[in-house]
Structures are given as C-alpha cells and as structure tokens.
C-alpha cells in the first residue's frame, strides 16, 4: 500500500506570515502532504485492517499476556473530565483523577502485599530501572556502597540485565537446573557483600513456578541483598500468591499485561513499582497521597527526600493507569483471583492437548503456569522445520505466533500463553491448527518454510531491511 506521502496532494503550505523574526523561522515551506480528511481516514482505516490484534485474532504469545482489553476502560479513560486535565492543574481541580490513582496504588499494594506503590514508570523496563535504582539507593542510604553486582537468572527477560546495567550494576547470570528451578548452589556461591540483589520472576520465564522461592529469599536476605520481582508473569498468580508474601522487596507490574490495558501496537505500557516498607522512601515521584481531610494531592521531592526521583516529565501514563484501575475495580478481589485461576486452567489444558497431538514439552514433568514451553527441536532434526516456520505458518490460520527462541536455553522453543480471556472453542481450534501444522511439517516442510502465504505480504526479509536501512520515505 502506498504511504500517506504518495497518495495525497502535496501542494506546500504557503509561506507563513507571522511576526517571529526570520532568523528563527523555517526557510523552506513544510514538505508534508495535504490529504483530504477522507483520504487520511481511509488510508489509516485500511492500514489498520492489515494488523492482527486481540480484537480480531487469538494471541498465544508467551510472556506477553495478550488478554482482552475491556472496551469500557477505553471509554472511561477518555472522558473529557480526565482527558482534558493539564498536568499543571492544581490538585484541588483534579481530585477525581487523583482519587482513582490513589485507589489504584492501594489496589496494587493489596494484591502484591507491598507497602506502597508508585505509578509513574511508563513501562515495565522503566519500572525495572526504578526498582533496581531503589535497591541501589537503599544500600547507599545505609552506607553500604560496595554492592555493585546484580544476580539474574540466565533465562530472564532481556530487560532485566539491561535495566540493571542502566542503574550502574554489573550483572552475574545464574544457571537453571534441569527441572526448571534455579540452581540454588550457584546462587549461594555468588552471594556476598558485593551483591546488591537478585532479579527474579515467578513463575519463571520457563513457565514453571520457582518452588524454592522462600529458601532463595531467605538466603538472599541473609546475605544483605534484596529481591526484585519482575512482574511480567504476574498473571499466573494474580489474586492468589502475593510477591510480598514470597519475600520480594520491590517489584514492578506490567499493567498492559496483567491489568488488560492495551498494547497499542507497542505501547504505551505502564510499569507501576511496588515496594516493601523498607524501600518505600525510595519510590519514584510523584505519588498520590490522601490527606487527613480526605482530599488527595501529589507527593513530591519535599515529601519524599530519599526518592530516586522523577522518571518522566509528568506522573506517568495516566490514561493507561485509569484503564488499569477500571479493570481492577471491575474485578475486585475475587475477580483477580479468578484471573489467574482461568489463565492457569487454559494454559494447562493447552499444554496437555498440544502434547497429545505430538508436541514436546520442555518441562513435561512440571505443571504449566499461565504459560508453558514447547520445543520443536525434534521437528528441526527430522525435517529442518524450525520454530520460526511453525510461528509463521500459524499466521496463515489467523492465529498470532507464540513467542519463539525465548528463553534461549531451550532450543527451537515456543512459549505459549493463552490467557484467561479465550474460550475453550478458541483453544480447541488452536490445537487443531497446531496438529495440522505438525502434519504439514512432516509431509510438506517447504510449505512452512515459505509461510505465511495468506497475508498481505509473504515472509519479509529482515536481513535485507537491515542492509538497506530504508527508514524514511524519500521525496515522491
């Protein structure tokens, strides 16, 4: 499809008449298209139809928790009373908004069993950065300046080591045992006075619950270090197991996963950070506080002198936070409990059914959490068909691809997470399609290697893209 730069009249804007001195002004007229409103609307409507999305397709996408984004949350976040609030509005004129954000802080604190929450991180990675920066601030405040090392399982999300490094830590990777749990002995070897903390997610990225979590917490704390909880997999235990109860000191939540705010084709996310009492002083700014008179206000540097500070210009992705609060308020406590119950039920059902039709589990002896790992290494050896080919072929059936090649320690792996919002009929169709694809892989592997065949484009050449780097539309 043509770009907007091709399809519309490009008569330039007339040179502006304005009393700003010429030295400050653009010399050439703005070279942007001038489509009619209908042309623009039609262009983007047609473009939208080229996307897969939750509203149109099933996403068995491990670690991404692609659940239904309730439409009511979208409508409510867009109410003029919220959407038109300027960030510099005094608290007295945005009490409704502050009230809801305060409710969300509290709700998240309850669910995680943490002492306090800051909603400001704009995404999971920023939440991680905030969390590890808080760990650093905690040690520094105690004069414990030598803790420069962060322990991270090798299977962790890539953001974990990246965030740790941005917070000034060096990273030590920890191995995983064959049963999917952490190698406790390795942990104990690494723990020492230079270790600031450990970053874990539980269930882990291998799709299994880390059974030794209480022991791990005990050892880490004994060594004077802290535990960071990566909330990416919170959907597996939401409303059932609180990270605070497992011994974590600080964590982030991916509201755009667990709390059903939309992925929006890549964002905006929201990565609220929650902390146990001893880390509360370091939470990023601003936060909402309820005053004795029942009113709400922003807490800022004066109130929280030890805070790690501000992460973005304002208070985070408020519009996303409103959606998360709408979701949580709709669920309530027992609804949150049902989320993980059905997420885990759906995952375990798929886990069994996909094994039944021939797929190999990476950890067959374990329960699936909200997701599970398969490997098609057997297919690769037999036919040359790789996980990527299976993924691309799924697209032809109107099913989004699972996460592939993550975690890297399992070869040719598919990480599959159905979420709680898909029906049994959808899961059964997925199993049938996966069975068919397995058959195709064995009988006509070329069909998979060229997939997809039914979309608006065939398999795209990413190497060509990186070599040519056509990153902008030239003059046309």
């Amino acid at each position, binding site marked *: 499809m043509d770009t907007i730069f091709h399809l519309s009249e490009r008569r330039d804007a007339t040179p502006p008449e304005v009393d700003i001195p010429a030295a400050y002004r653009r010399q050439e007229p703005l070279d942007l298209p001038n489509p009619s409103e209908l042309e623009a609307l039609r262009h983007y409507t047609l473009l939208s139809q080229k*996307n897969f999305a939750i509203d149109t397709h099933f996403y068995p996408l491990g670690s991404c928790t692609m659940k239904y984004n309730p439409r009511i949350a979208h409508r409510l976040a867009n109410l003029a009373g919220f959407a038109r609030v300027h960030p510099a509005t005094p608290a007295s004129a945005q009490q409704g908004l502050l009230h809801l954000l305060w409710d969300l802080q509290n709700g998240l604190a309850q669910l995680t069993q943490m002492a306090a929450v800051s909603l400001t991180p704009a995404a999971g990675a920023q939440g991680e950065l905030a969390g590890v920066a808080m760990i650093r601030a905690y040690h520094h405040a105690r004069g414990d300046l030598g803790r420069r090392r962060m322990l991270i399982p090798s299977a962790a999300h890539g953001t974990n080591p990246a965030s740790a490094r941005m917070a000034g830590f060096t990273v030590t990777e920890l191995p995983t045992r064959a049963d999917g749990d952490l190698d406790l002995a390795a942990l104990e070897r690494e723990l020492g006075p230079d270790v600031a903390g450990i970053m874990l997610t539980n269930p882990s990225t291998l799709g299994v619950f880390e059974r030794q979590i209480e022991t791990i917490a005990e050892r880490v704390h004994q060594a004077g270090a802290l535990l960071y909880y990566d909330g990416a997999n919170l959907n597996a235990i939401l409303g059932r197991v609180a990270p605070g109860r497992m011994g974590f000191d600080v964590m982030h939540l991916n509201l755009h996963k667990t709390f059903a705010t939309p992925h929006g084709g890549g964002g905006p996310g929201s990565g609220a950070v929650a902390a146990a009492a001893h880390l509360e002083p370091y939470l990023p700014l601003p936060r909402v506080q309820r005053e004795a008179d029942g009113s709400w206000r922003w807490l800022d540097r004066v109130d929280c002198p030890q805070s790690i500070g501000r992460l973005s210009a304002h208070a985070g992705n408020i519009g996303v936070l409103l959606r998360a609060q709408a979701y949580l308020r709709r669920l309530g406590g027992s609804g949150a409990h049902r989320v993980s119950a059905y997420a885990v039920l759906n995952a375990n059902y798929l886990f069994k059914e996909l094994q039944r039709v021939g797929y190999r589990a990476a950890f067959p002896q374990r329960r699936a959490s909200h997701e599970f790992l398969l490997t098609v290494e057997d297919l690769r050896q037999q036919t040359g068909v790789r996980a990527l080919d299976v993924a691309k072929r799924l697209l032809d059936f109107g099913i989004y691809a699972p996460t592939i090649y993550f975690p890297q320690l399992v070869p040719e792996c598919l990480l599959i997470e159905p979420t709680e919002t898909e029906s049994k009929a959808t899961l059964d169709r997925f199993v049938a399609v996966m069975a068919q694809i397995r058959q195709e892989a064995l009988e006509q592997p070329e069909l998979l290697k060229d997939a997809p065949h039914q979309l608006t484009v065939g398999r795209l050449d990413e190497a060509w893209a990186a070599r040519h780097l056509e990153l902008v539309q030239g003059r046309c």
Partner: protein
Amino acid sequence: MLAAIDAGSIDALFDEIPEHLQGIPQGLPEGLSEMALAREFEALAGAQPLLRCFAGAGAYAHHIPATVAELIGRGEFYSAYTPYQAEASQGTLQVIFEFQTYICRLTGMEVANASLYDGASALFEACLMALRLRPERRSILVPKHLLPNWREVLDSLLPLQNIRCIEMDVDPHRGTMQVPAQAPADAAALIIPQINALGLLEDVDALQRWAKTQGLLSIAVVQPLSLALLKEPGLWGEGGADIVVGEAQALGIPLSGGGPYCGIFACRRGMVRQMPGRLVARTRDGSGRVGYCLTLQAREQHIRRGQATSNVCTNQGLMVTAATIAMATLGARGLQEAAIQSHEKASALLSALLRFEGVERVWDGPFFNEFVLRFPKPAAQLRDALLADGILAGVPLADLGLGEAGDLLIAGTEMVTDEDIDAYCAALGRFLEH
C-alpha cells in the same frame, strides 16, 4: 477441561506452590458491574471542572482532529501487539514508518525512531547516546532554563551511570542561554532547547556553532508542532543538531493529566546504530512485494540484553499512531495554521494582559506560544483564585523552581478564543482589585 488435564479442581493446578503462600486477596472491594463502574468513573470525571487552559510548560491544549480518537480506538490498532511478527503487523509498521518520516521532515533530520516514553525520557536517552558517541566524556551541558521536570529526570537517572549535568547559565536580561568561552573538558554534548522554559526562543544557530567548535554534540529539544514555523534543527548553525528529541503531545495527543505522551528521537544516519528504541524499515518479501519490519533489533535489550543501547522496550505505539493521524489529517497547511494561530492567540493574550497596571513582561525576546508575565501578586495565588472562574491561568514559575513569586508562565494555542481572553481579563481584573 479439568478432565482433559486430569485435575480435580482448578486449585489442584497450583499444587507446586506452597499452600501457605496461596489465598484470596483481602481488603479489595468486590467487583463492579460495567454499569456501576461507569457510574463511578463518570461521577469522578464530572466532579472535575473543565477549565479554560492557559497552562503550558511542556503540555499544550491543542485541537485534536476527530479522526484521531476514532482511528486509534479501532481494535486493530488499539489491541495489537508490538510488531515483532512483521507479516501480521503491517498496519502498525507502516504507521511507524510514516511517523519516522514525518518526524524527519519536521526536524530536518535523517533518521527517527518509533518513539520513546516522553520528551524528558527521550532527552535522558539522548544524553546516554551522546556518551556512547563520546565514550571518553562524562558530562552533559544542560541549560538552567530547561523545563525543571525534564531536568529532574536527568538528575534521577544520569548519576546512576556516573554522568554529570553541568548547568549553563541564563542571561538574566534576555532569558536565554549563556555559554562560556570554553566548554568543560569532559562534556559530551550541549542541550539546546528551542523553546526554553521561559517560553523564549534561543539563538540556536549560535549555540550549535559554539558546540561544534567545542567538539560537543548538539542535542536539540523541540516541540514538534512549533517546527511547522521554526527552523528545523537539522539546519541549525553549521550542519545542524546531532540529536533531536522532543515531546509530541502537541500533535494529536490529549493532555490526560500528563500522559501517555510521546517522546520523539531523531539523529544523523551515521549514528543510527547507537540509537535507543525501535526502528522500522521498509523491506521486501520473497515475491518482491513491499513490506515493513522492525530493524537493527540487535541494538535492543531483547537481543543484546545487558549490552543493549537502552533497556527500553515498549514505545508509545498508540500515541505514535495518534500523532501520525493528526499530522496527516491536518496536513502541512493545518499544522502551519495551528502553529501560526497558537502564536497569534498567545500574542493577543499577552497584549490584553499587559493592559493591566502592574503587569509586565519580564523578558521581551521573541516567543512561540508561551511567555512569562510578572504580576504584582503571587502567581500561585492568582492561579488558584482563577480556578473558581474556570480558568487555569498558567504555571507559576516558582512552582518550577524558576523566577520570582509573581512570575506566571502563560501559554496560548489555536484553541483560545476572544471570549477566553475576555474571561481571563475579567477574572484577572477581579483578582487584582482585591
């Protein structure tokens, strides 16, 4: 389904988790029906007054074409995942490609990414990138009159990597940046905000030239709508800025209490491998059909892990879509008109307010759509008083840690009507009389 799994109950599926860790959360209220939820939110939204907005300081009440909300609310954009599976994400990918092109044409730069969280965090990433490009340096030159909340972001995050901010002074008479004869030795880059936190236009050509002669990178901080009128950073001074960041909220994104907004990030083509964030490239499929995909992912954390250019993963996808649709709907003519009207409405407001005795302009240099006035009473008091008239009068400079108690930073956009100006004047008159 339980039968298929051979499980007696859903609870049995959690049998690997110690039982004492499990429970149903207490302390959360019961769930609400959609109807009750809507009532609660609507009551809270309705309890907040809709104000005539004259506040700016980095967030502006511009008109948003009606097409924007309709289109970004479409499920295909709204509920799509990050476009890692390119073939199933051509809509989002082409939108980002078009966004990158829009940002490049507005800024005069060669490459732009798929956005960062907001303008301030984009500036933070720009500082890190400057230090990757000048690995031997450890500091960034930051103007005193950068927006203070942006500065706070740098102060929170740069020290984690032992990077210092060195403050560039402001000429007290002109309100614009002053640079020393010689730059500090370990400085990697100079941040040049066009527009500065006082609403004033900087002499960006001279600043870029100074940075260049000092061997510094120039990091331009811009408001992209203003670039419909103002000189594009790619043409500043001699050879232009090296990195351009900015806040795209003015391009079709609601104020929404401060977010989600959208950080833009552009640079020279030769620096692209040091960029943070996602990038979309045009490519081909096996039959030669054109398509789009993410590219240079080896810069990113999901591939490079601890060695990535940034930990950033999520961009502001839906806001990118909003900004792209807004720019397309408005077109070159509409963007220019919005910029001109913003300047003119601000100018009209300035003239009207200067008619009050004791009200004066502190710095009188050229401005785009925002200016500082000094009032004979504290600006915070003024601001609070005018709320009762349904007016958000501006942002007290003292709230920003700048200026004097009487100084108020006031913004106008194309949305301001004569009636709004009259209302402001009437309310101000009443306030000043008391």
